[in-house]
């Protein structure tokens, strides 16, 4: 394709309206700078969070933003209970446990399910897919109360296992949809060859499917981990003292005033750190996970 072919008949417009490839250097530079400006604007609150967390409480509470104030770990020491004796570790460990174990449970349930919905599909596989999806559409808050009453009756309120089972149900549809989108990408010829060679279900799963979709499984697991780690409503309702999670611990700062600003920012940073790490690790597959595999 060359410009010559199109030029003669559309001379007038072509001259006045430059196409994508011919846009001026200035425009390109300007739009690049605009992208940088937008990026910086979006990340600014986070930079401010980390910066404030590293300031003393006096500097943090200054009415005029102290950008160049001396850095200190005071806020972090306070968050971990240097003076107050508060101990966020149980909450952090509970979160790690709830998010970690529920994610393992999700992967164990979702890999075979996604297989039965794509590679060797059951009849009405798309109905089943929609069943999984529809559970995501139902507002969680409507199922909260019976779960609370059941947990109270069974005396498993404030029990991390009950919470992580709910987290598994919360993430299972996402995992099934996402993993299926990875499985349908495997060429069918591969399964034909395997079944001609006499490979059974388990062999096929272990030797062919898992190696191919393991990056997909990792991304799925990271996204489920993020959602479980972030969850607050169920954790707040279903846990109390011993099983409370990191986001619930954070709600303790809701009413705190300015004198704890550095500590609040340190708390927000510490609790967000695992999610930021998991998110950046899964960055390439993040879209696929967030759209439940609909967008690749």
């Amino acid at each position, binding site marked *: *394709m060359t410009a010559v072919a199109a030029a003669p008949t*559309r001379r007038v417009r072509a001259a006045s309206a430059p*196409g*994508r490839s011919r846009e001026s250097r200035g425009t390109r530079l300007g*739009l690049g700078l*605009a*992208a940088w400006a937008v*990026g910086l604007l*979006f*990340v600014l*609150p*986070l930079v401010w*969070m980390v910066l*404030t967390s590293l300031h003393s409480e006096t500097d*943090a509470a200054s*009415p005029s*933003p102290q950008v160049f104030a001396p850095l200190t770990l005071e806020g972090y020491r306070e968050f971990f209970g240097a003076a107050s004796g508060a101990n966020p570790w149980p909450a952090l460990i509970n979160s790690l446990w709830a998010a970690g174990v529920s994610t393992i449970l999700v992967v164990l349930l979702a890999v*075979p399910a996604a297989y039965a*919905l*794509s590679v*060797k599909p*059951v*009849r009405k596989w*798309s*109905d089943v*897919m*929609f069943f999984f*999806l*529809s559970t995501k*559409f*139902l*507002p969680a*808050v*409507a*199922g*909260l*109360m019976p779960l609370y*009453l059941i947990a109270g009756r069974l005396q498993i309120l404030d029990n991390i296992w009950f919470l992580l*089972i709910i987290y598994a*149900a919360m993430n*299972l549809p996402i995992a099934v949809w996402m993993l299926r989108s990875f499985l*349908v990408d495997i060429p*069918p010829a591969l399964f*034909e060859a395997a079944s001609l060679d006499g490979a059974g279900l388990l062999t096929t799963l272990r030797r062919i499917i898992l190696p191919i979709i393991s990056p997909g499984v990792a991304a799925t697991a990271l996204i489920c981990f993020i959602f479980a780690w972030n969850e*607050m409503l169920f954790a707040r309702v279903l846990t109390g003292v011993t099983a409370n999670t990191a*986001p619930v611990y*954070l709600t303790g700062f*809701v009413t*705190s005033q300015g004198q704890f*600003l550095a500590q609040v920012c340190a708390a*927000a940073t510490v*609790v*967000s750190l695992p999610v*930021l790490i998991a*998110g950046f690790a899964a*960055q390439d597959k993040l*879209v696929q996970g*967030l759209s439940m595999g*609909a*967008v690749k």
Partner: protein
Amino acid sequence: MTATEAPPATTSARTIRASQTDAQGYPTEPRARWIRRAPLVPAFVFMIVVTQLPFVATLVISFFRWDAFRPDDRGFAWFDNYVNVFVDADMRASVLTTITLTVSVVLLSLVLGLGVALLLNRKFFGRSLVRTMIIAPFLVVPVAAALLFKHAIYNPTFGLINGVLGWFGLEGVDWITQFPLGSIIFQLVWQWTPFMTLILLAGLQSRDHEVLEAAGLDGASSWQMFVFMTLPHMRRYLELAGLLGAIYIVQNFDAVFTITSGSLGTANLPYTIYQTLFTAQNYGLASAQGVLVVIGTIIVSTFALRSVSSLLKEEASR
């Protein structure tokens, strides 16, 4: 779903055992069918037990008088709870709040997300770093993000906004008191724009570049290409991003709870139900509220499912 639906990808593999399968390649023997279903059963049963049974319980409880503060007065109440929901002015207000909150956050972050995606879709120096910076807000724990905005950004005396305004000699206001819902919307737009950007960017990158190039050579202006080629192609992605975003934002509890604690007219439905359940301890009423929210969601999500279903059908026919 229907007989016309294309058989899934592996039909040819199954022709080997053609005698046991039907025209669409599904096994006909009961035993073979169950072998095929087996990997699905654990996940399916798990979902029914953990997500469907509680809803059934909610439905049943919604027809009962059940108030923890009045333990002796428990019994079948027909539709009393539902009537009470509709009579309750707070409940009607929270429906309106939920709609305002959801629609404004979704629309604002969609428009912003499209703009950011268009900027990110170009080659420029440090693009991947900028992309990472834009994703970052989505990767902050929601409660932490809400706390950050409440204390470090909106606070009238030590917050960042008023501090920066002070540099220019401007007098700030108490943002949360003056604009309670606006403060929540602003924080959520900051957090959800990256989500929209990611999905829309994937859409932009799936455009046919040869066609775009040809249009450019034929003298189409950037604006013409955007309106007549990019937007129609992006419709599906805009719908998907909007609907998925709406599903999450309708259910938002963290921002409302953290920034305003539901005061100043910001209590949305999840917050109101939470209140009925834990402050008022009225289980019957909370259930009726829950059921009505589910019905509302089903109406909205029917549209959402249709949109996602078109994506799935496209895949099945590929």
